[in-house]
């Protein structure tokens, strides 16, 4: 009996952890990032981990709106990178973001993708309004979804696509997805004829399963990607390290290779109000 009590006390002592034993140097940074950033960020993280001993970057990729909701509910994060300034402003309103650290680090543009297996042979933007075409978009709360609607409005305002173009296209939508990668997935699977995603998604897609319909610059929408630090992050230095890396020459070149547009060094910093 006494031995058992001793064993129990030993376990408690070791379990409390703060027993004075030296810990290995390991710093973890938790990054919540928009789904469209997954490819580029994984690569940036690998580069950083290779050169900084003990730095470990953990990711949570989700729709930006989902990230804002998680922040609201107290999810542990150190850095956030979203796909729109509107969503960053919403994140700041949760009170967890250090608003002085908001910086835009990349831009993206929209792409219209068409499934190679589609029997509808959609070839031009106006074909999106063809009755019966199956189109998939991101939901209205997702940045990509909002940008897509803005794009359709621009097309309609130009007058080059017929009256009620936006309405006709929206009539063809069969599903509003929770993040832009899910849109890509459904078109790649061939279950939908077309979808509106980011340039970066089109670029990362399997070229055998999808084709891209080019969007003239005057109709396209530019997406701004801001990064920010979370106020209650437990390792501010490492979090800052990651955020700075995004705007560094190496980080920017990785982003560019994935299809993002870089931020000129002289671009004025956008700070959320």
């Amino acid at each position, binding site marked *: 009996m006494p031995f058992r009590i001793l064993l129990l006390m030993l376990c408690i002592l070791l379990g409390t952890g703060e027993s004075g034993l030296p810990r290995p140097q390991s710093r973890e940074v938790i990054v919540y990032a928009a789904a469209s950033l997954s490819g580029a960020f994984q690569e940036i993280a690998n580069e950083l981990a290779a050169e900084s001993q003990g730095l470990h970057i953990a990711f949570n990729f989700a*729709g930006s709106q989902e990230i804002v909701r998680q922040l609201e509910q107290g999810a542990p994060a150190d850095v956030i990178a979203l796909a729109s300034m509107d969503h960053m402003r919403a994140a700041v309103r949760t009170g967890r973001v250090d608003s002085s650290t908001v910086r835009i680090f990349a831009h993206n543009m929209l792409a219209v993708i068409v499934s190679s297996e589609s029997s509808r042979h959609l070839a031009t933007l106006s074909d999106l309004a063809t009755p019966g075409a199956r189109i998939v978009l991101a939901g209205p709360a997702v940045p990509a979804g909002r940008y897509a609607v803005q794009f359709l409005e621009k097309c309609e305002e130009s007058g080059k696509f017929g009256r009620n173009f936006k309405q006709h296209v929206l009539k063809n939508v*069969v*599903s509003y*997805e929770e993040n832009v990668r899910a849109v890509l997935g*459904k078109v790649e*699977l*061939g*279950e939908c004829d077309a979808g509106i995603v980011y340039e970066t998604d089109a670029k990362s897609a399997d070229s055998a399963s999808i084709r891209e319909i080019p969007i003239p610059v005057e109709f396209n929408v530019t997406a701004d990607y801001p990064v920010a630090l979370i106020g209650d992050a437990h390792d501010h230095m490492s979090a800052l390290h990651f955020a700075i890396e995004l705007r560094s020459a190496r980080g920017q070149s990785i982003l560019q290779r994935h299809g993002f547009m870089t931020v000129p060094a002289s671009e004025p910093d956008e700070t959320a109000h």
Partner: protein
Amino acid sequence: MELKNGTAATSKSERRVIPIALASLPIVLFIVLPLTALVIRAWSPGIFTRLVEPDVARAISLSITTTLLTTVLTVLFGTPAALLLSRRRFPGRKLLDTLFDLPVVLPPAVAGLALLMTFGRRGILGPLLTDMNTEIAFTQTAVVLAQLFVSSPLYIRAATAGFAAVDRELEQAAALDGASPTNVFWKVTVPLALPSLTGGAVMTWARALGEFGATILFAGNFPGRTQTMPLAIYMGFEVDFSSALTLALLLLLISFTVLLVVKGLLHQRYFSP
């Protein structure tokens, strides 16, 4: 019921109840507390006026109609299957039995993918469906199919057990008295197995009501057409958290009411003098 030496016996069993009650307390609290928390957070005087909002009303009516249809179809097609599994020995019975357990164990998203690979445009049955000018994915049919796939095994298992538990001698006695097989089934077998059948049907309905993963993959998310309550709640999180809370509470109240009514009817039939 009192024993001759009643006093001693009752106090002994009372003493046994208290530790058992204490041991049950954690799980009782664990189930009750979150439900109570939801009611407290989400309740507002105007909650029932939200029932008439178009998106909410559509989600509710879609959930109710699809789950009812699913339950009816499950009972219709599941009962013969349960009879077969409970009465007949045939090669591969164990395999079939195990296969029926699979949809319950599989992650719903996997179920959704499987359905897409079968009934989708590019699925196994795709060409056949296209020839028949039918599209299943992203329709209400898909909603019902998704619910059927994940929830019907619950009824089949319960019904199989229920039928197996019916005393064959009673059926044989009825047949000897001149009852036709149909009469034996409806007048002897079913009434005896009814608690299991009803319990199984309720579980099917409940599982179908909460179905999300397979639905969003196979049927997509489109308000009014395929956006059931769980989808509306999930997507609603991202637009307006308080709206999601309201929907969640409504779903909770509807489920609770239906379960209460069904259980009440069941008890009335079997336990009232």
